[in-house]
């Protein structure tokens, strides 16, 4: 029983972080049909903001809020720098500009800060443990689960109940039609990037909370996770991204627990084989999402 509980906490806390990562990627994809490869750098931006504000003596929550805000600004900047100028031209151009922006941000951190890891302050509670029902677990894991639940609820409310959310869903379903009915394209897209940045910022706090330091390449792993999760869940569906995130965490954790030592080093091969199987079964991903409109 206690083993099962431990396992569930591990899966849910990892899955919560993965789901938020995936959601941040898919919200932009849903509208633009383009993967934002500079997404991982939003996580990096939040991390370095924490590092740079760490000497200020502000309370941790204020620093975290500033960091999340910076990630949102960086998200909006991605739109202005990499997407908006070339959006109407070609898919290839946008793909390359998003890669370029990612490289630019990474190298800026490398040149102006340091290629070596830099410390990020963590609140005391991130290093504490909680004991219940025979399980000892870091409080961080429970915080991650709670944060994921709150963020997902907030996000769901935003998408269903607010004008902005409805406009974004409309744009994701049929962008041209939505524009004809008076949905401002630039506003919707910028909002999507801002929300993407918000999710990246929150994820950054949770992800860096496991590490305690930030490096220029920190965004690579989350980007990869988010990408795989959205591919499994369905690139067009927000629910799919969340499901994909949790499923990926479940697969990784299960494999970590069950594979023998000799095979454990090939874990990623097993994970990707499972991903291929899922895609053979459901080429669109697990949840199909709205009928595909034309890319704008």
């Amino acid at each position: 029983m206690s083993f099962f509980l431990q396992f569930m906490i591990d899966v849910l806390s990892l899955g919560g972080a993965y789901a938020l990562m995936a959601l941040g990627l898919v919200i932009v994809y849903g509208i633009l049909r383009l993967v934002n490869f500079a997404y991982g750098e939003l996580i990096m931006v939040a991390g370095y903001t924490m590092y740079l504000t760490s000497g200020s003596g502000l309370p941790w929550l204020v620093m975290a809020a500033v960091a999340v805000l910076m990630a949102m600004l960086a998200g909006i900047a991605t739109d202005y720098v990499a997407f908006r100028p070339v959006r109407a031209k070609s898919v290839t151009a946008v793909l390359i500009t998003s890669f370029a922006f990612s490289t630019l941000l990474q190298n800026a951190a490398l040149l102006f800060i340091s290629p070596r890891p830099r410390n990020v302050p963590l609140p005391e509670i991130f290093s504490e443990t909680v004991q219940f029902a025979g399980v000892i677990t870091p409080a961080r894991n429970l915080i991650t689960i709670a944060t994921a639940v709150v963020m997902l609820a907030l996000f769901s409310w935003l998408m269903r109940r607010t004008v902005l959310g409805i406009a974004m869903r409309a744009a994701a379903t049929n962008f041209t039609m939505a524009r004809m009915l008076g949905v401002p394209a630039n506003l919707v897209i910028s909002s999507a990037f801002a929300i993407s940045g918000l999710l990246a910022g929150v994820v950054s706090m949770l992800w860096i909370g496991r590490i305690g330091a930030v490096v220029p390449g920190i965004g690579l792993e989350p980007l990869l996770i988010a990408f795989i999760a959205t591919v499994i869940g369905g690139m067009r569906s927000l629910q799919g991204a969340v499901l994909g995130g949790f499923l990926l965490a479940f697969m990784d954790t299960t494999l970590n627990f069950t594979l023998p030592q000799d095979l454990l080093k090939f874990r990623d091969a097993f994970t990707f084989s499972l991903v291929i199987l899922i895609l053979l079964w459901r080429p669109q991903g697990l949840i199909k999402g709205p009928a595909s409109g034309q890319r704008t």
Partner: protein
Amino acid sequence: MTIRTNALVGAGLAALLLATPAIAAEDEILIGGALSLTGVQAPLDTPGFKGAQVAVKALNDAGGLLGKKVKFINIDGKSDPVTVGNVAVQLIDEGAKLMVAPCDFDFGGPASREAQSAGIVGISTCASDPLYSSWSLGDKQFTLSMWNTTMGATAADYALKERGWKTAYVVTDQFIAYTKSLSKYFVEHFKTIGGEILLEDTYTNGDNDFSAQLSRLQALGKKPDVIFISSYGTDIAVMIRALREVGYNAPVLGGDSYDEPAIHEALGKKLGNDIYFVTHTWMGPEAHPDMPKFIQLYKDMYGEDPDTSFVATGWDTVMLMAEAVKIAGTTDGAAVAKALEEGEFKLLTGDLSYKDADGGHAPDKAAVLVELKGGTPSFLGWRRPASIPNP
């Protein structure tokens, strides 16, 4: 449009670089460097690069080498083995007489192979895998670092012989040759001298999740005397944090990848205790009488204290080259290699002598032991293991 502008700027820069070739003058000795200042290798190569520059300035201020001025040109190897090789070729074409190779077999190997085929000596700043040998790279190639055989053996000796920790739990990150071979030699030597390995586990770099490993360790039912973690980068802090949080307070041992202030700070006062690691040097006068001088020169050049002890590997690489050239009286590859094989050198990163080319240029080198207490490192002393495992 953005792309086109970028391409134009890029082409312009390339033209500029090509237009000003740095052909070595007669009164200069050119040392080429293929260190990576960008990409995944940058955290290890950038400090080496900075240390090397300090050394070159110190050499020239003291009158140069063989009466000639020393010039050091490093072209960014970009953490790409192919680029590293190309850069080395370019530097050799420009007249490089010695080659500073990047700090890892995968990245440094290509530079050393080019140096070998040009008949010049190449030294890697800190490649520690025994693959970095004259067996695989040629009879004029060396690494400044101790091999993982020494690093693993020093850790095992310290655990069992000095502290009497008899049972070990070993975690190996499957990241690179370095992380894998360090565990291998630790385990081998620990068993040879009579220790027992309770459990060996693997970790994937970047996972940031140690829960499965923890539950396997908990399922063991026994607590190890010592925990050996061979990993790289911030993942070390992730694992130690995870272990400490659930009550595994056994001492943790590791290699030179622990020698990173950010990791120490990330663990902090609460979790950064009872951690020991084997590394290249210690940035204080206890390690070497010349260390304060080096730190002062470094400060004069960069206006700040070195942020890692890896800067000393760059200084040492250049100084070792200079000393060998002085002994040989020439920069000729074969003569310098012979001087390196025969000499005994007292470096900031430890006393060093090499085996001959048939012996793989195996470095017989002293290692530093550092203890982390309350997130602050302290110097435990130099160690030179009496016996080491075969590579």
